């Protein structure tokens, strides 16, 4: 009897705890979306892509990420400027073909085993500092990207900032689906940047490929 009462009390306590946690989460989420309240003055020195929803610099389709790479910026720029090397660290990019000094044709893996083609044009090129590109109208998806090379503190190398923007085919539903299949361009961009860093610093891209008791995997296959 006593035991039953204890377990009932435990359940009630757990219930109350879960309810309180849900309440707190709802409160935090409502604050994050910035509903109501006074307009923000916008004084922060942060890059555009970290600005909150509801501020003038916010764009839901832009991803930005910065990584510290222990190499001089010219060396990093040189590799990045050679688009044909992208498949070395961009997992989704099957092939990049140079069309002329400004334009190249990309073949990109898409969800479900298909592939997407696009033609990009370089829109900005500052030696050792930045490269930007944008998809041409004949492309199957609309995208743009910019990579910037910023000197880090002395002895620390370079901060490489990649910003990418794309219009998701199939809108928000398509974006969700792509995320589920780990093929969402922003997830990919973040991982590609990490692979680029590893490749530049260590000469290889880290992989956990190794044996397991799972029949579906081989010892040379990467796993999540």
């Amino acid at each position, binding site marked *: 009897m006593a035991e039953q009462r204890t377990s009932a009390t*435990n359940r009630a306590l*757990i219930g109350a*705890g879960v309810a309180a946690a849900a309440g707190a989460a709802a409160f935090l989420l409502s604050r994050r979306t910035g509903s109501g309240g006074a307009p923000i003055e916008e004084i922060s020195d942060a890059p555009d892509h970290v600005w909150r929803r509801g501020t003038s610099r916010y764009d839901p389709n832009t991803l930005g990420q910065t990584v*510290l790479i*222990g190499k001089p910026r010219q060396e990093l720029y040189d590799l990045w400027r050679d688009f044909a090397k992208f498949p070395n660290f961009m*997992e989704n990019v099957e092939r990049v073909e140079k069309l002329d000094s400004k334009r190249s044709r990309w073949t990109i893996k898409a969800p479900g085993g298909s592939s997407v083609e696009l033609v990009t044009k370089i829109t900005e090129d500052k030696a050792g500092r930045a490269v930007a590109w944008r998809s041409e109208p004949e492309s199957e998806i609309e995208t743009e990207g910019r990579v910037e090379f910023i000197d880090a503190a002395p002895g*620390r*190398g370079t901060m490489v900032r990649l910003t990418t923007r794309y219009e998701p085919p199939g809108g928000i539903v398509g974006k969700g689906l792509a995320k589920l299949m780990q093929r969402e361009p922003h*997830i990919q961009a*973040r*991982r*590609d940047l*990490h*692979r680029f*860093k*590893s490749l530049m*610093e*260590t*000469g*290889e*891209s*880290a*992989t*956990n*490929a*190794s*044996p*397991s*008791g*799972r029949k579906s995997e*081989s*010892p*040379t296959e*990467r*796993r*999540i």
Partner: protein
Amino acid sequence: MRALTWHGRHDVRVETVPDPEIVNPRDAILKVTSTAICGSDLHLYDGYIPTLRAGDVLGHEFMGEVVEAGPKSTLKKGQRVVVPFTISCGDCFFCKKRQFSACDNSNPAETFDASRLLMGHPMGAAFGYAHLTGGYAGGQAEYVRVPYSDVGPIVVPDHFEDDQVLFLSDILPTGWAAAENCAIEEGDTIAVWGCGPVGLFAIQSALIMGAHRVIAIDHYPHRLELARKLGAEILDYREVDVREALDEMTGGIGPDACIDCVGMESHGLSIDNIADTVKAHTFLGTERPHALRQIILACRKGGRVSIPGVYGGFADKFPLGQMMEKGLTIKQGQTHVQKYTAPLLEMIEQGKIDTTFLISHHAPLERAAEMYRHWHDEQDSYTKIVLKTEAATPKQEQKLARELA
């Protein structure tokens, strides 16, 4: 090859899995000769660490012989090496600062998001320890793939027995670093919670570093006996109130530094620990930091707290105000193993450090699952288990069993 794989809480099996292969230029493949079961493997066994997948090969304390080396590896076939449990590239910002366990490249792009989400930044990788830390197969196996083999492994001369050098992979550097994090000064009293392998090595290291006294706390008589043999005074927390005893033994001021070699699965029948256990089992909490709470109250004002014990997430009822008001210095983290292997090997060579006194059992890899059960259930008598892979066939197993008997 044969390997110990994890399948769920308290379910590990020795089964046949594919052999590893060289994947990256800096890789090497080892034929494992000795591998140990670590106290932190029990956190995996008990299901306390998220992102472990059924079929994962465990084991992060191992050594062996190089059987294959990639084109950029500096190792040669036939060399005998001990491998640090932390996988570190040697080239990133952190590795260059010799903070090897914080390596920014070893956790692959496919797995690093999970730990970035949980910890704020992606963690460095480790062997055989869940996908949060990279999802690399471990060394409780006949063969293992070792990434960045030009940086981590330390070559050991032939005149050492495996048992003398195996623990350079984790627990010896971890115990040493735990004592180093206490910044020991002349006259210091160091209290060590937990007399498992790391605790025992921390005691030994603290005494080598010049601690005036070491006081060891546990409740397993045999483990306390090992601590006493090293030169520590001992406290069985079932017999005495630990905080009162420590105050009385230090003239009321408390120990100058305290080491938590217990981690997330604290024992003890205090109210806070019972509440933590209930919460851990109902998924409302991850930690049972009873020992650490006690440490913060026991440590002297302005003292140092060193935490080599493993924690994985969020703790509550944590004496944060006490930590601040007493002005404690807290040092912690996964060990930067690569920093310690060479100097510790030298101390083993000089006979300053004994690494074999804590080994209680040798067994063939084939019996690893059974050994996990013993390690979990009989912590008093099983103080350290070393698995031998050369005996991984039933015939050789019988031979080894005869020799051991």
